């Protein structure tokens, strides 16, 4: 927490919101995992647990109008950008009240009202979308910043290099945020990534940073600085965030001894958990007491459980919706505006 100590300007509200948002993500994922394990959720899902400081540290530096693009492991980004539990659980369960009326599911949650342009089930698939969103911001003069979240596995996609090149050429307000959790699906990142990731972005003349992705204040401070610089036209930027995925590639990836050890998982949870470390820091700094944090945790867990209960009882979309939204209705082709 050294980076955090060097900066005292944060007020208590900011700290508390960051803590709450991280706990909300963890509570959401614990419930989503239970829904899978108890066979109440259609399909499967990819857990964000362990990476909370990345989504929260970055999204807390953004306004609701700023945009993000997310990934298959996207619940954390969605919560951090301002989404509600109820619509999220409804979407996971394919219910009508879900963010996408049950048509997207876990891997396609989009919440455009809060600037979330959507999760994406193609690894690296949203890198172009994020860059295009930054082109819109520049061309339309909105001053919005776009953050493109992706994992280390996505750095192997050629699309990234194409769009970084254009973002750098056109000086677009986009931040490429690589959450390096050490595993590209079921394979160690060391086995799929040659050289250094930051050097790849630097090759395009993009200023690049590495930060401890388990330290929410360090992430937030860096994100605030880069977001402001993007607004001044100094983008794009690249951040590599060192983090860890507590679960397997997806909820069904339970026996994973063949690619990583239980000792390694236990060590990260014990020593580098972003929530307990930040909680301890808040106690150390006498910003919160342990009891107060426990009360927050309980309240959030109870919110999440209530949202799950609601979503389980919510109705499915009417079957007549199956061919709705294939095409957007166009207001008027034939009239000039």
């Amino acid at each position, binding site marked *: 927490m050294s980076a955090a100590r060097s900066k005292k300007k944060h007020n208590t509200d900011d700290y508390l919101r960051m803590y709450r948002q991280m706990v909300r993500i963890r509570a959401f994922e614990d419930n989503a995992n239970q829904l899978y394990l108890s066979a109440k959720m259609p399909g499967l899902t990819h857990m964000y647990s362990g990476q909370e400081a990345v989504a929260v540290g970055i999204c807390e530096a953004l306004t609701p109008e700023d945009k993000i693009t997310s990934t298959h492991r996207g619940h954390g980004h969605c919560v951090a950008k301002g989404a509600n539990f109820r619509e999220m659980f409804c979407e996971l369960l394919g219910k009508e009240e879900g963010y996408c009326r049950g048509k997207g599911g876990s891997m396609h949650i989009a919440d455009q009202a809060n600037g979330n342009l*959507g999760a994406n089930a193609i690894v690296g698939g949203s890198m172009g979308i994020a860059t295009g969103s930054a082109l819109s911001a520049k061309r339309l003069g909105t001053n919005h910043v776009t953050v493109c979240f992706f994992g280390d596995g996505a750095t192997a996609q050629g699309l990234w290099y194409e769009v970084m090149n254009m973002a750098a050429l056109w000086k677009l307000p986009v931040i490429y945020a690589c959450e390096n959790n050490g595993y590209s699906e079921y394979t160690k990142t060391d086995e799929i990534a040659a050289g250094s990731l930051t050097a790849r972005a630097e090759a395009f003349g993009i200023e690049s940073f590495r930060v401890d992705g388990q330290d929410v204040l360090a992430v937030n401070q860096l994100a605030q600085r880069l977001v402001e610089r993007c607004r001044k036209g100094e983008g794009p930027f690249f951040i590599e965030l060192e983090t860890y995925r507590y679960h397997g590639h997806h909820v069904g990836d339970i026996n994973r001894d063949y690619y990583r050890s239980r000792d390694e998982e236990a060590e990260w949870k014990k020593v580098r958990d972003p929530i307990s470390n930040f909680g301890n820091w808040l106690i150390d700094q006498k910003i919160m007491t342990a009891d107060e944090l426990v009360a927050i945790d309980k309240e959030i867990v109870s919110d999440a459980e209530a949202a799950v209960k609601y979503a389980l009882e919510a109705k499915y979309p009417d079957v007549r919706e199956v061919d709705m939204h294939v095409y957007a209705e166009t207001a008027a082709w034939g009239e000039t505006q």
Partner: protein
Amino acid sequence: MTREITLSKAVNEAIAEEMRRDPAIVLLGEDVAEAGTPFKVLSGLVEEFGTDRVIDTPISEPGFMGIAVGAAMTGLRPIVDLMFGDFLYLVMDQLCNQAAKTHYMSGGKLKVPLVLRTNMGATRRSAAQHSQSLQALVAHIPGLKVAMPSSAYEAKGLLKTAIRDDNPVVIFEDKLMYNDKAPVPEEEYLIPFGKAHIKREGRDVTLVATSSMVQVAEQAAETLALEGISAEIVDPRTIVPLDEETILRSVRKTSRAIVIDEGHQSYGVTAEIAARISEKAFYHLDAPVIRMGAMDVPVPFSPALEDITVPTAAGVVENARRICRGELVHAA
């Protein structure tokens, strides 16, 4: 007032008119600015609209296609120039997994109003990777609309409609037709999607033809007329949405149909339209519906080989004669 202009000029006019109307429209692709594309279709646009709106990209088709998708989701209305239709294979993920599905996957919240302009057409001696007609590939994907102009008139009216549509639209221009002239009104007009055009009325056989195949059908119809066979030509103008009703009405009248499209015949546009006719007008038919697509071979370079891979007027005439005589074209 109507004057004759080339298809290339018609496309240029459509884009310029729409860009003047709507500042959210941007144009991007390889060599679209000063070069005005290899076919010079976009000449002059950068001079009027500047490099902020007419944007030269690196040779990175997936990259600029993806950027266009994101830009379309956030307030711009991009027109993407894909230099050759063959490069569709390079942009498939961004076009088919992203652009086509975003509106649906988001439960109708996000829209992707973009136009992908590209081309098609063989017999330009450009070999297998610059000659393909890949409209069936994208017509297969729900969420995309597909327009196939058959002349300068259609090119302008369909492109203006495409630009105003709130969905991703792929528009195929036959690159051999860029210099073909047709009467085009000076006044503004749009051609609605999903409305076929009866290019020629007839009573004995319906020729459903797309893009440059409309010209092939017209030549065939002239020859057939001399032999007393009256051919009706239906140009769907958009294959998604498809004006099935106009096609079926024509076939119910003529009782015979030949479907002509320059894409590969197997699993192609001709197959789809022929199947719909067979399903929905079967009892009106006096002969099996004939498909005429390009041969199922990669487009060869040698003129001696290339010319025999695409449907020709002579081929249409021969098939029309035979079905009108009650002969089977394909042995049963």
